[in-house]
């Protein structure tokens, strides 16, 4: 049950349009559309909601009182809860309003021999009909996945029954149990991540030469994940509010219904432009993607980037033969270590782009990296800045490392080497926190599930003596042996504050001392304050850190205010 609840919690975020139903077999109570024995439909197929998850998780505690289990012996010998369960599940899936999505039955059981207690006469028949039922479901496009759980001291034996039901090849069989356990763990520990369906962002034609074009599909493979859309609610009723926008003319206060003109001040005149003109200015070419030439990979610098890259894959749909030319080009680029430079004539922001080929990588789990090209958006001259040249205006000097420094740095790099690092290891802590907040608020949980911030470095690991030694060696060589003391001294100097700050501090001390010589309350009561000089009055104010500005009357008033009179 816990795994299911966890799965539901991730599913509601990752695929919020999925529909889920839950049904138990071998139960004491019965509740299902066909009134079959031993089957209890706990939740009909529906889209996920917080209450669905809440009900499911609370069921863990009161399962016995609500549904209860049955070891199978209490039914009549002809009853077959597994068969009934499949039948009911199939019925549930069949009723679903949205047709033709991927349909799956996940079967959780720890009973490797479901017909153990059956009448020997009907056993064979039961076995046959159940297998037939499973086959029928599969023919209808419903896949059945088995999650076997071993009983204590007893390995789940697939051979007794299930291998026939879910039809497996022999070689798959041996790996199945291992795989199943892994899947079980995965079900529990999946990351909360909004999943996207593979979808073409845009179909474009890539013009290689006049008269030679190929069709491409563009895909967004890397895009910053956001917290998702929100709507404004009225916090007293929690109902959505409607936003109404109006354009108001500031000169007359009239509401502007349509405005096709834009304006700006230019060359000390007001210049008007229509929306169409603006669009025309921006549209500098009709060609969607135009090849300009090829450059060696070294020309693509690390700062030649503006936004996430777009993935390109050939499409035969518009132009037949596109794939062939694309593959040939792809292979040539890889062979010659080049990238293609092209102009991407997108109407909103046309750019020079680098088309960098990517080779396919496949490992035993499947495709790690698809074959295709990445389109990297390049900056223009006016976008690139040279801060490294400008900031060294400030004097002080610059040092370039010698071999001894570099060697120490290399040792450090070797020690702090993250082997087999992938970005898949690091989740966005802000986003995960958002999801766990939503979950806590949605399910009205008392505590927000703690989210581990996996962006933090392994500080414990960095305290290991071998690492500390390497770091110290680097520091000693580069900073000098006395660095820490020097830093501490500089820090102490800074704590004292600047010269003016020190002066101010000293003045305040004097004022406080002087101010103690007077009995201010008595002076105020006697109306003697105005007899004091401005300098004397300021002792009080400075001592209390009040403003010192203004004429004598203002100073007196300020003192009286402070005394509460």
């Amino acid at each position: 049950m816990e795994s299911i609840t966890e799965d539901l919690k991730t599913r509601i975020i990752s695929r919020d349009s999925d529909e889920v139903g839950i049904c138990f077999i071998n139960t004491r109570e019965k509740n299902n559309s066909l009134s079959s024995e031993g089957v209890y439909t706990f939740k009909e197929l529906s889209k996920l909601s917080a209450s669905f998850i809440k009900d499911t998780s609370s069921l863990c505690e009161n399962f016995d009182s609500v549904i209860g289990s049955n070891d199978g012996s209490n039914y009549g010998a002809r009853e077959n809860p597994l068969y009934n369960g499949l039948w009911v599940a199939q019925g549930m899936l069949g009723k679903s309003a949205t047709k033709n999505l991927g349909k799956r039955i996940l079967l959780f059981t720890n009973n490797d021999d479901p017909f153990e207690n059956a009448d020997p006469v009907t056993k064979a028949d039961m076995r046959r009909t159940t297998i037939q039922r499973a086959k029928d479901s599969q023919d209808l496009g419903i896949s059945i996945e088995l999650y076997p759980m071993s009983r204590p001291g007893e390995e789940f034996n697939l051979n007794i029954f299930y291998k026939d039901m879910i039809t497996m090849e022999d070689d798959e069989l041996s790996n199945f149990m291992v795989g199943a356990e892994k899947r079980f763990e995965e079900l529990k520990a999946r990351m909360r991540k909004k999943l996207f369906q593979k979808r073409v962002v845009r179909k474009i034609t890539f013009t290689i030469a006049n008269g030679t074009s190929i069709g491409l599909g563009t895909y967004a493979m890397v895009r910053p994940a956001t917290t998702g859309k929100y709507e404004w609610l009225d916090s007293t009723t929690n109902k959505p509010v409607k936003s109404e926008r109006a354009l108001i003319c500031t000169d007359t206060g009239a509401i502007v219904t349509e405005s096709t003109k834009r304006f700006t001040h230019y060359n000390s005149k007001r210049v008007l432009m229509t929306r169409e003109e603006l669009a025309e200015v921006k549209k500098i070419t009709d060609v969607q993607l135009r090849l300009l030439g090829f450059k060696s990979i070294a020309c693509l610098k690390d700062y030649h980037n503006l936004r996430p890259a777009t993935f390109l894959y050939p499409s035969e749909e518009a132009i037949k033969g596109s794939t062939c030319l694309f593959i040939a080009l792809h292979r040539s680029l890889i062979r010659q270590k080049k990238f293609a430079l092209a102009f991407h004539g997108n109407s909103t922001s046309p750019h020079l782009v680098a088309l960098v080929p990517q080779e396919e990588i496949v490992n035993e789990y499947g495709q790690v990296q698809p074959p295709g090209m990445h389109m990297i958006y390049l900056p223009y001259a006016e976008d690139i800045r040279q801060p490294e040249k400008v900031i060294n205006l400030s004097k002080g000097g610059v040092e370039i490392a010698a071999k001894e420094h570099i060697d120490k740095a290399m040792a450090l790099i070797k020690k702090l080497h993250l082997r087999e690092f992938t970005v898949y290891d690091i989740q966005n802590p802000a986003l995960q926190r958002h999801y766990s907040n939503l979950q806590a608020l949605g399910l009205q949980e008392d505590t927000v599930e703690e989210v581990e911030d996996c962006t933090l470095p392994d500080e414990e690991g960095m305290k290991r003596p071998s690492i500390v030694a390497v770091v110290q060696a680097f520091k000693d060589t580069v900073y000098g042996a006395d660095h820490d003391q020097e830093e501490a001294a500089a820090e102490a100097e800074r704590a004292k504050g600047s010269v003016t700050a020190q002066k101010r501090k000293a003045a305040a001390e004097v004022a406080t001392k002087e101010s103690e010589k007077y009995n201010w309350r008595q002076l105020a009561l006697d109306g003697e304050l105005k007899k004091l000089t401005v300098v004397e009055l300021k002792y009080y104010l400075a001592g209390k850190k009040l403003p010192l500005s203004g004429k004598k009357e203002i100073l007196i008033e300020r003192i009286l205010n402070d005394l509460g009179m």
Partner: protein
Amino acid sequence: QESLVFVLDVSPSMHPYLHHVSKATAAVLERKLFNHKNDEVGLVLFGMEETDNDLRREVGEAYEGIVSEPITLVDGELVTKLRALPRGCYAGDYVDAIVVATDMIFKKYGDGKKGNKRICLITDAQSPIKEPMEGMSMMEQVEKIAEKMEDHGVKFDAAILRMNEEKRESGSESTEILENLASRTHGEVTTVESPLCLFGALKPRTVTPTTLYRGDMEMTPGARIKVWVYKKAAQERVPSLKVYSDKAPQSDALATHVVKMDTDYKSSDDPTVSIPKAQRAKGYYYGQQLIPVTPDMELSLKFTADKGVKLLGFTEAANIPRHYYMKEPNLFVPEPGNRKASLAISALARALKQTNMVALVRCVWRQGQRNVVMGVLTPNLSFEDGIADSFYFNIVPFAEDIREFGFASFDDRPASQLPSKQQEEATDLLVQMLDLSPSDSVESLQPEKTSNPVLQRFYHFLYLKSLNPDALVPQLDETLKKVIEPDFSSEHIEKLQGLCSQFTLKTKNSTKFWKDRIEAAAKDDDAEAKPDVDTSGSGLSFDSFATRQVEEVGSLNPVQDFQTLLARRDSDEWVGKAIQGMKKIIIDLLDSSYKGNTYDKALTCLAALRSGCVMQEESKEFNDFFRVLADKCQGKRLSDFWDAVIQRKLTLISKGEVSDSDVTEEAALAFLTSRTVKEEPTTAEEAEEIDEMDALLGEAV
């Protein structure tokens, strides 16, 4: 604010390029007129026949052939002057011209004026320089000028024209002099190989860099390096203009014509009540449910992080492929004036370079920031004196940001789609032929030297409009066309065609883009629908009908709705919605059919769905549906519908059409025939199933 003096060489050797120079310099001013209208600009021309400058007037001799225009606020008049540059007839001396320009700046501003002061020289450096004054070497004289410029905070930029390949080698002495001047004053010397580069070489403004972060980079808790972080690239966009209101009367000279946007949030129960900001809460979707999160809650629950840059470790550069870079890059430089920091960064950067590794860092730029960024540091080694080694910084994605889509392997493609040996040789030749970086030092269309053509055209249009409100949008400048179109010699074109002819590419007629189709359909509809609506006289205006946002596939006009939805690009979900909606319509049509009266419409819908799925590469969606449909129809009440499907040869989407389909072309074809053959047994099984169900129900009852 900036003061800029253009020093332009107009001597005879420059004549072929002068029109490029005038276009490029005018373009700089056209931009300044927009957002830097307080900038001041002066002009010095050298190599002229006449002589007209302050220094000549004072000294009475020398400074021959130099004409200066005083420094004034940037205005249209100066643009006009630059657009019609005079041609000189003598070889001019650029050193003298620089002296004149420097003198202009001193006289105008003295020592006091803050802000950027800049001299920008454009020359081909072909003319000889006069012997310096007696007792001084050339270098000493330049040294003196540099010192003076440094004292007054004047920056010196130069663009040296080297468009003629034969002359590339000559004038190296000049280059040395100019580079010396530039590096002393932190300016830049750009070698300009093509007119296009000239546009990129002239910077319309000097950006004073501002730091994003100043503080420690923590390698381990005990070891820190003081760094400053700057932007390395920032996209300059077409400025957004203000919305214009024509409500104010024409005669009102003081009218601002400004439009204000007013947003009001109304209660859904009572539209007259508006909800103040404090009473609004954000509602986030949790499944189908909206979870209200008030600003207070958000503040207390949201993630916060402490300011700082922490090193996670080092990894092989190959683990962070180039396409992971998410945003505009930054630059990590050592704290200025801190020798230790510059040494530490230099040591690390050089070690990373040698080992081909990169550093991973976690950055929080401001205290209490609501998110963190993960980034990668790559070395940026300095080859110039006085410039420190630094790191480029690029943001890398989190696990959530990466979408794992599978694509068919190239090796699995049908043989017809794989290139032959000759074809691969052809592309190999193509790549060699169109090489833009034939050697290390030569690179065309370098981003650093390529100006944004859209911005150039936008500002030029603004300028034309300011002169004449009815001006038309100008053509893109010929020079800048090279950014969007390659410029091949005719010999190249011929070769290119030869190479391309190795491939057979066939454009399919039916494959217009959705938008085009809808436009075409809309045109047809326009013609037909308009009279209808006009005569109907109902309250519904055609406009409101046409602009209605399609949100689902309706039963009235499903094909058009479907196509409109597919063309919607404002959200990912429309495609899914469209496909699901269409399927439902088809099923509903079949379910409600009476003697086949809805079959035609259902068939049209099915055909539309199929082509839609091909376009969107949703082969699985269609194929699954198609199989279910087959089950539903064959041998049953709807079998006549299936016959019609077969007749129209609608079948599964095959690999040939959409690469990730799991159906081969043969299998797709076979699907229709095999199904008809199998008809008998399926019916039998089906019947059995129904019996079974009856039995079951009977039992239950």
